[in-house]
């Protein structure tokens, strides 16, 4: 890199002052107006190119290794249950099964812990083909109503789940709240039940500032069509963490949401029994439901993508750097030799 500071600074001082005395129209000298500000002029010289590629490689490969190992350390247990939790004889018409309030929705799953999982173990539910990012869905909420009791009637944005048939405001209103996920899980290992801690699963800022502590559910799930879960009307919204988590809409149609945490370690090959209340209807739109148990590391959950991507790009850059070095050693080009140029072959007639 070539940095060159302007060296013509003082030289114009004398002419400048005399010009000013004559009150002439001569433009005043300044490095700015004469476009002579000191500048660095980076150029893609082979040296810079090679070192840039090499630098990227050298930085990226360790980062890649670190993230990959962090991701590999995470133990993840995924169980899809939406298909298996329908009784055998009802599998031809899953929709009838899920919509019938009389059928027994309880379903028991046994999971084997693949590796030792140290607490806290995050419990997620994962939905698939569920468009929480659909504009109609995202918009159907009322932040004002969620925040304060006095704005209870602010349900205009919540249609079609703003008011009950009698015109009473629904709290919390809107499609998002109405379709709240209502499967429940209870875990036990070695016939001893595992407590799932459902505190502190929502973002603090939501609990404190977005959902009012004096706002209580009202007229919720009281309409003709019941969407998802009902809420305990005696608990303020700020304490309804499941709702708060659900109301942070997901970005893509496949998403996980935090259900709770198991705060004991699980040993490898341990068998966990999960009793699922399979209430939530994903059958009508062909969505999948999964239960996910996962530990975390400093980088979060299990995802090899970033690590692999870092390694790939880092490797590629190192490879390019190497290639350029070889090229430079075996076939050095004269820098700035204009005769190399395609341009010069048909240059217009004049030359010095």
């Amino acid at each position, binding site marked *: 890199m070539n940095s060159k500071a302007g060296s013509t600074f003082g030289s114009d001082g004398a002419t400048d002052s005399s010009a000013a005395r004559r009150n002439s129209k001569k433009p005043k000298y300044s490095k700015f107006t004469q476009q002579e500000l000191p500048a660095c002029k980076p150029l893609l010289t082979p040296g810079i190119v090679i070192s840039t590629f090499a630098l990227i490689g050298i930085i990226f490969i360790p980062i890649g290794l670190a993230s990959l190992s962090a991701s590999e350390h995470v133990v993840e247990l995924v169980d899809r249950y939406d298909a298996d939790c329908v009784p055998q004889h009802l599998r031809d018409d899953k929709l009838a099964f899920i919509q019938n309030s009389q059928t027994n929705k309880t379903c028991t799953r046994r999971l084997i812990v693949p590796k030792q999982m140290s607490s806290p173990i995050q419990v997620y539910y994962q939905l698939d083909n569920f468009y929480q990012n659909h504009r109609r869905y995202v918009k159907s909420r009322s932040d004002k109503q969620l925040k304060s009791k006095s704005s209870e009637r602010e349900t205009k944005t919540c249609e079609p789940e703003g008011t009950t048939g009698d015109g009473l405001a629904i709290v919390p209103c809107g499609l998002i709240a109405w379709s709240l996920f209502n499967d429940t899980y209870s875990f036990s290992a070695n016939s001893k039940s595992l407590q799932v801690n459902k505190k502190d*699963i929502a973002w603090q800022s939501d609990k404190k500032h977005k959902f009012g502590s004096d706002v209580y559910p009202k007229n919720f799930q009281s309409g003709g069509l019941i969407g998802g879960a009902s809420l305990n009307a005696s608990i303020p919204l700020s304490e309804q963490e499941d709702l708060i988590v659900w109301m942070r809409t997901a970005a893509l149609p496949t998403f996980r949401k935090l259900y709770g945490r198991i705060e004991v370690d699980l040993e490898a090959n341990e068998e966990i029994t999960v009793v699922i209340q399979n209430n939530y209807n994903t059958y009508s739109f062909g969505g999948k439901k999964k239960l996910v148990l996962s530990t975390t590391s400093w980088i979060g959950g299990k995802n090899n993508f970033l690590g692999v991507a870092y390694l790939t790009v880092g490797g590629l850059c190192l490879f390019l750097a190497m290639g350029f070095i070889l090229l430079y050693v075996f076939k050095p080009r004269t820098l700035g030799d204009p005769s190399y140029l395609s341009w010069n072959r048909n240059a217009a007639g004049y030359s010095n």
Partner: protein
Amino acid sequence: MNLDGETNLKRKQSLQITSSLTNDQSFQKFKALIKCEDPNDKLYSFIGTMYFNGVQYPLSPQQILLRDSKLRNTQYVYGIVIFTGHDTKVMQNAMDPPSKRSNVERRMDKIIYLLFTILVVIASIGSIFFGIKTKGEMSEGNYMWYLRPDKSSIFFDPRRAGLAAFCHFLTSLMLYGCLIPISLYISIEIVKVLQSTFINQDQKMYCEESDKPARARTSNLNEELGQVHTILSDKTGTLTCNSMEFVKCSIGGVAYGSGSTEAEKSYRKDKEINYFELKPLSSGFNGYERLVKGFNFYDDRLMNGQWVKEPHSETVQMFFRVLAICHTAIPVVESKSVSYEAESPDEAAFVTTARELGFEFFQRTQMSISLHEFDLKIGRKVIRTYKLLNILEFSSARKRMSVIVRTEEDELLLFCKGADGVIFEKLSKDGQVFEAETKCHINEYSEAGLRTLAVAYRKLTEEEYRIWNEEFLAAKSSVNADHDMIVDEAAEKIEKDLILLGATGVEDRLQKGVPECINKLAEAGIKIWILTGDKLETAVNIGFACHLLRKEMKNIVIKLDTPEISVLKDGDKEAIKMAINERIANQIREAQSQVSSSKGSSVSFALIIDGNSLAYALSSGLENSFLDLAVDCASVICCRISPKQKALVTRLVKRRTRKTTLAIGDGANDVGMLQEADIGVGISGVEGMQAVMSSDFAIAQFRFLERLLLVHGHWCYRRIAAMICYFFYKNLAFGFTLFWFEAHALFSAQPAYNDWYISFYNVAFTSLPVMALGVFDKDVSSAICLKFPSLHQDGIRNIFFSWPRILGWMLNGIITATIIYYFTTNAILDQAFRSDGRVAGSELLGATMYTCVVWAVNCQLALYLSYFTWIQHLLIWGSIFFWYIFLVIYGFFPPTISTTAYRVFLEACVSSPLYWLSSLFIVVAALLPYFSYLTFQTMFFPKYHHSIQRAKTGDS
């Protein structure tokens, strides 16, 4: 009068008959009738008659004050208003100034259309998919109950999917509105104004002598300067100073004057014969050369009163009398010295010369001219007054000017000066004594690049004059369309049987640095045409003097006065026309075969054509072949052409070559050309401001053109081109992330980002760095631009704004967007975002993606820039930093305002290593394609500017 731009004095006089009306009372009984022509736009003619006491008095332009005239030398005048408002000649002349736009901007419009198309296509694709999906919402197995399709509003109603799709189309037009860079127009305006400031402030384009800096009068065309392909230049006042210097004269067949001219010097330089020997001599002259402006005449035989001893002393006396009397200049007496205000610099030079040689013109009244002159008989200086009877004025048709005076001895004399050809035709038998020698001298002078005029006189008898004068007055007072012709005819009747005195040679000095500048421009591959009203010989001489023509070039001359055509003179007009047309066509064809036969060899051609031939060559049948020929020639000189032809040639060149043309000129006669060309450059020289007023750029001297084109033009072109490309890049990079997200949200037009992020994208996070690019970026320093003029070829070939380049940048934008979207979603979604197990929702995806976009587009700019001052650093890194600041501040707004951005950065992102690591990776990944491309290009297929840049690094 500041109408034709010429600020020099114009003499205006009242009629003799009304000159007694000098106070308000005298008008009480004054009654007269004026008949005059209809309002028209001819500034230099006026036809009218005043009827007063039953007598007709002709009114001429001499009696007319045009609108906006300013009185000098006089306190006040009495007058009558003839035309007002839009009827005045000035208003009749007012032309709508042409609106000029640069090539780059015109192409930019096309890109905007392209973007519009992309916008509509994207929106339609979205709408179609949305329509299909919405229709399918009610179907079995895909019933998205959580969206309540049974109770949805018309925007999402599955039963009316078509309508919903249309509504969606409108919504997406708004969502993707950011694809159309409205802020681009504003940014470009700001950038161009700043670029113009740099042009105005450039010290190296400031002229000390005239105290004039360069001025960009419009900021529209800065980048066009870097693409100039053809320069059409006026000669007088543009290449030359338009300060005439009297150098040589031929009196009575004897040549006087030993000064040398620029053309001669340059001739010598070309031949390099004895140049150094001659040098001391010419520098010796320079010692007192500048003593008197307009006078560069040295000859001991004439100076200091020595002319008395010459053999033809009477002829010499008469010669200088003509110079001292036959003119329209006005003396300005200051203490003891006399200076002159003249309509043309030639006249000033003549009068000055006459003064220096002892014929000092010091007073002009309406009726007389007074001189201090040396009386041969008495042998000392006396005051002589000549009664001025008539002035037969100069016009371009007549090419001569005469005055008729009555001397103190009651002799009637007609003094005449004019173009040699015209005068020689009108000589009497006795007056041809010196004709041969004078002709010979005139040829020598014009070869030396001098303007020549022949000088003659005749004696009149009282009777002859009286008869002629009546006729002349009648002609003058006639009111009809042929007025001018009748007056000219009348004048011609007395301008005959002249006695030749001699000829003058006036040098039109080349401006400083013109040959060097033209050399550089030619090296840059710019074609230069000279369009001049001068004679062919003079034009060719100036061409040699300013290196436009070189010895090794082959000259192709197309002109009409060849023998075949003179023979035809008596035939009927149609036949002549046909013959001439044929002749010109032949000449062009011959020349073309000459040029094409020597293609590939290093011989270059110069085309020289005169105005008459040009009129035929530009007629519909021949214009294409003529222009093809002209384009193949390295330099073209058109001489003897009228202002209108100048504009016509400019228009044809512009249309035919489809390249940028630049016209440069200084006089009112160049205005048409300046307005017609893509860029008009006015020289703020001697001939007033008219050209400057209608120009796009004004410079003080021709040589500044070099810097204007090669430095500022190059920079501005590169900057604007890069800026526009980059603008499209950044908007596509942003817009396509939105698109990819929408595509994964059932095309429901859900934006990926918080509304305010979207609004601020073009305003806050990406606007200033791109302006820094547009204002400050430099690929090479000004010194290198001048050292390697061929860099200008980049602009002529338009390689920085070619369609492949533009589309390449757009593609780069789409690639960047795709990389950012897919890598971000893959890196941060589904699994826990942080070690506390919380996952990323749409708000975190939005913030992360947006971070990557801001970083990527700003770093992309940093990669592109080749010139970093603290301003660039501040703006680029500042913009990125500002995004974080914005995120923090916006996060503190109440949730009802900030919605999804509420505390998103401080609470969720800062403490998540995944956020930082993924943004680092994604930004680098998004930049890699461009960086690799750039690397491969500079390493293996370098462009010219790359190698120059590198050569420079190698040097330093």
